[in-house]
């Protein structure tokens, strides 16, 4: 099994034109085997681009194709409206990879989703997306580096570190059930706890790799959740041990404020919660391979 998406997931790509990022990534995802059933573009309703039927709105796309998920890679000024359009159309799972959305837009959008569309799950923004190897890939993760069959679930705030983890596990012959990139922004739609809970409930996921970074307190909250609710082994890696306080390290959410949000504090909290904490991404993979071997 997998979490959030599987082989039955059908995807509408928002913002499709012959030159858009949406089309580029949508075609890559389709080539991987993802069921990309529709695209949207307010000016191109009725067209067919690369065999993808285009609708003027997400609502029409859902009505005509029954799409269950949406994929958004539109530029930052338009992303919040695109997310709300998908939610209003009844999409249950929205993946938004757009980087650079203002924090206030994210906060407003998140709270509107919670208040008006409680069944909708937003993944991202500013994330690489989600891949359930062999079943469904929505986002920009390279399908080549993932290995189907489980038993590891991955959840990560960072894109390239996610690829690194996938690659190292796959090379050792250890597959993944689902790999979720929750993104590095201050107000992510889906957080560590959402993914940990889903992996805990998924019978095919036997162990979880969690990749965090400096800033905020999501890792500390995840540690509390692990200690209370997760019985499966968890291996963690936290990036940013050498990050100076007060500077945004690339990701808008990766900033140490005062003494809060440091990598050390997060690592200690996770260790206390019973998770295995690795010093670097390679060690995290090595430890996970050992755990999977022990599980048999």
């Amino acid at each position: 099994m997998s979490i959030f998406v599987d082989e039955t997931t059908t995807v509408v790509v928002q913002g499709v034109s012959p030159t858009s990022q949406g089309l580029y990534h949508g075609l890559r995802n389709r080539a991987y085997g993802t069921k990309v059933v529709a695209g949207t573009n307010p000016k191109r309703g009725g067209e067919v681009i690369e065999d993808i039927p285009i609708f003027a709105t997400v609502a029409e796309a859902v009505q005509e194709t029954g799409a269950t998920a949406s994929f958004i890679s539109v530029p930052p000024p338009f992303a919040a409206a695109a997310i709300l359009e998908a939610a209003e159309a009844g999409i249950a799972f929205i993946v938004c990879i757009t980087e650079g959305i203002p924090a206030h837009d994210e906060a407003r959008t998140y709270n509107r989703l919670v208040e008006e569309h409680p069944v909708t799950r937003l993944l991202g923004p500013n994330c690489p997306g989600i891949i359930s190897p062999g079943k469904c890939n929505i986002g920009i993760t390279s399908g080549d580096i993932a290995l189907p069959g489980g038993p590891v679930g991955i959840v990560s705030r960072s894109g390239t570190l996610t690829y690194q983890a996938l690659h190292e596990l796959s090379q050792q012959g250890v597959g993944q059930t689902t790999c979720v990139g929750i993104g590095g922004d201050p107000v992510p739609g889906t957080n560590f706890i959402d993914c940990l809970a889903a992996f805990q409930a998924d019978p095919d996921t036997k162990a979880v790799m969690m990749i965090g970074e400096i800033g905020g307190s999501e890792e500390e909250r995840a540690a509390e959740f692990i200690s209370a609710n997760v019985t499966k082994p968890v291996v963690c890696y936290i990036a940013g041990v050498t990050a100076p306080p007060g500077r945004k390290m690339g990701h808008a959410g990766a900033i140490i404020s005062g003494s809060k949000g440091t990598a050390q504090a997060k690592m200690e909290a996770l260790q206390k919660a019973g998770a295995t904490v690795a010093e670097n991404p390679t060690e995290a993979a090595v430890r996970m391979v050992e755990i999977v071997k022990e599980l048999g």
Partner: protein
Amino acid sequence: MDLYEYQGKQYFARYGIPTSPGGVADSVDEAVAQAEAAGYPVVVKAQVKVGGRGKAGGIKLAADAQEVRRHAGAILGMDIKGHVVHRLWVEHASDIATEYYASFTLDRPAKTHLGMLSAEGGVEIEEVAATNPGAIARIHVDPVRGLDLDTARRWVDDAALDEAARAQAAEVLVALYRCYEEGDCDLAEINPLILTTDGRVHALDAKVTLDDNARFRHPEWDEFAATETEDPREKMAKEKGLNYIGLDGDVGVIANGAGLAMSTCDVVNQVGGRPANFLDIGGGANADLMSSAMEVINADPSVRSIFVNIFGGITRVDEVAKGLIEALGRVDLRSPIVLRLDGTNAEEGRALLQPHLSDRLMAERTMLEAARKAVALAGAAEQKSEERA
């Protein structure tokens, strides 16, 4: 982007938050002119983006032009915790009856905005939070609903500000929220917010952090961006559109992706070295980006070796390798490079680089091995330069 106090006050003024009359000065003569305009007595304040200015002697009261000359002369050029003072803010001195604290920021776990108000202002809010947490009245503001005057009035009562200050303070808080929200601030803080002896409430200081992601809808931020950083390396990187943060080590770091760049700095540290910088060239990693990155690193005199750490995801490693080779042809590097290329098409990429490898350009298979190599090279280079000295 952090603003200087004077920029923060100018930003506050756009949203109707009252401040003292004053102006900016880059020289002693300008300081006197601003003091004459503001009216004596005045306060001469060092403009640096670091706390503890008062303790360092960077904030002085002046009763006349002679005192302004003396203080401005002493403060300009002063080094406050590594920040050299190039600019002053000179404002009319206020007769302070009471000092308060007010701020808005994002409460990330709660995913709503957090307002903090305290009758104990003028000191570090972290200190108040630690020693007397009951003295801070907190409210959560739903980003969809915002903050209205009635709520602000109840909040002011809750914080037990002086009766004389409450009505004005509530209005200032509503204006501060507007500044925070419409002004796309990560942080909008007034410390202290004061009640003067003649019964006026206004901002005596301003701490504003703007959300860089919102820059596309704030053309008025251009003037702030021009003064954003004083680190020459960061200025150069910014001009080239790179995501760069200067650190104090000797191993230059280039990686694709923020997480990987952070992790690369960490691994350099773990194997006993010190990163000279954080540099994320993003997903693309083409020849132009790679040459810009190398130029910035090359301009840093403390760099003794360079660690290029690339994981190809959507960008294939063979494309990255081509970009790298082209960049190496364009930039004459002072320091040796250690490469670690992995991910999609890594074999093809490594094959392309093979003929170019030398004792100035080395490749290692893993992040750890490459970090060890880069740190060793930096150490050897340091030893050599010490021997020469």
